[in-house]
């Protein structure tokens, strides 16, 4: 993430926290091979404001958004493995050639103490 991206995401996270709004945060925690975004890229799924940031766009991101909506419902974090290793000559949108591991977690308000 660039410093500008990080600022934007931090402000969006803080706004959701201050409003007490439940959102889902997706973070790329590991990649193998070639992926559009690298480790550390983040996307906030805010049900009232939409998406802030990106984990790479396309089909891979769609899978992450789907997981984010599950997480918003259950309140339980998930690990999503996005496989972008379709045949390079298929012209599929998922031909970056890599795999990325994404941690999707509910944020703000924090989980109550166990």
């Amino acid at each position, binding site marked *: 993430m660039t410093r500008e991206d990080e600022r934007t995401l931090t402000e969006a996270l803080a706004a*959701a926290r201050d409003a007490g709004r439940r959102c889902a*945060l997706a973070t790329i925690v590991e990649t193998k091979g070639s992926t559009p975004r690298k480790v550390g890229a983040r996307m906030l799924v805010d049900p009232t404001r939409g998406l802030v940031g990106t984990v790479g766009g396309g089909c891979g991101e769609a899978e992450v958004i789907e997981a984010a909506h599950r997480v918003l419902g259950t309140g339980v*974090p998930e*690990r999503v493995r996005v496989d972008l290793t379709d045949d390079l000559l298929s012209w599929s949108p998922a031909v970056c050639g890599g795999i990325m591991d994404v941690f999707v977690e509910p944020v703000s308000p924090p*989980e109550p103490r*166990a």
Partner: protein
Amino acid sequence: MSILSAADVAELLLGTAEAGGSAAAVVVVRTPSGALAALAGRRLAVTRMGADRIGMHGTLGSEALDTAAVAVLHEALDTPRSRDGLREIQADGATVELYLEVRRPVQELIVVGAGHIAQPMAHVGALLGFKVTVLDDRPDFATRERFPDADRVVRADFSDPFADIPLHERSHILLVTRGHKYDYDCLVRALRMDPPPAYIGMIGSRRRVRATFVQLVDEGFTMDLIERIHAPVGLDIGAETPEEIAVAVAAELVMVRRGGTGLPLRGVERVAERFFSQTTEEPQ
């Protein structure tokens, strides 16, 4: 210790790096099933502002986990090229996976001279994540309006240009004043800095640069020091306009930061030659 939200940690990391400090944070991303599963998403962070101001923030839920995680955080902060990513810790008889991220103090770009190259340079510098300072002795040039992307626009005397700007090993200094005499005065000050700045670039033709180097040798500067100066500045992409020159300098700044070669990737990778040649050479 209280439970930190993702927003709390994001603010802590960003704020610390922008204030010139270092910070690292972990978040629990995988636990064994059972009682520990509730810890996923817990966060712990360490901040360092100088050697003596060390802060610890948040908790992963147990003292043993926190102790193990703090060791991971300090090790990452002590490793200059540590990579963000997954780490494992063992505590309380269980293995917990963490995602670690580190923020270093924000890199600074100091553009000396607020003329026509400084404008696109401030823009591209900000885009690359530098904290940008522009300085000039002319009040009409050192204005916010001309440099909306800069963090600071400073009016300064070129005989002592860095009087109000703390320089450090994260400073990248680009000399593009309206006169080579000013560039020279500022260059001498930059070269005498201890610790040395990360980058010193100076604009100028081959002839001008040679004249500058001759003068530096006459004043007793060693070749080791002189070879640290990036002059003429930027990568060779045939840049002519101020915008193109800014891109050439920006490419050099990225190269210094990341350690690239500055060569076209096409020539480095030679994909066509290596994988499509009719010769006996086998693809590697």
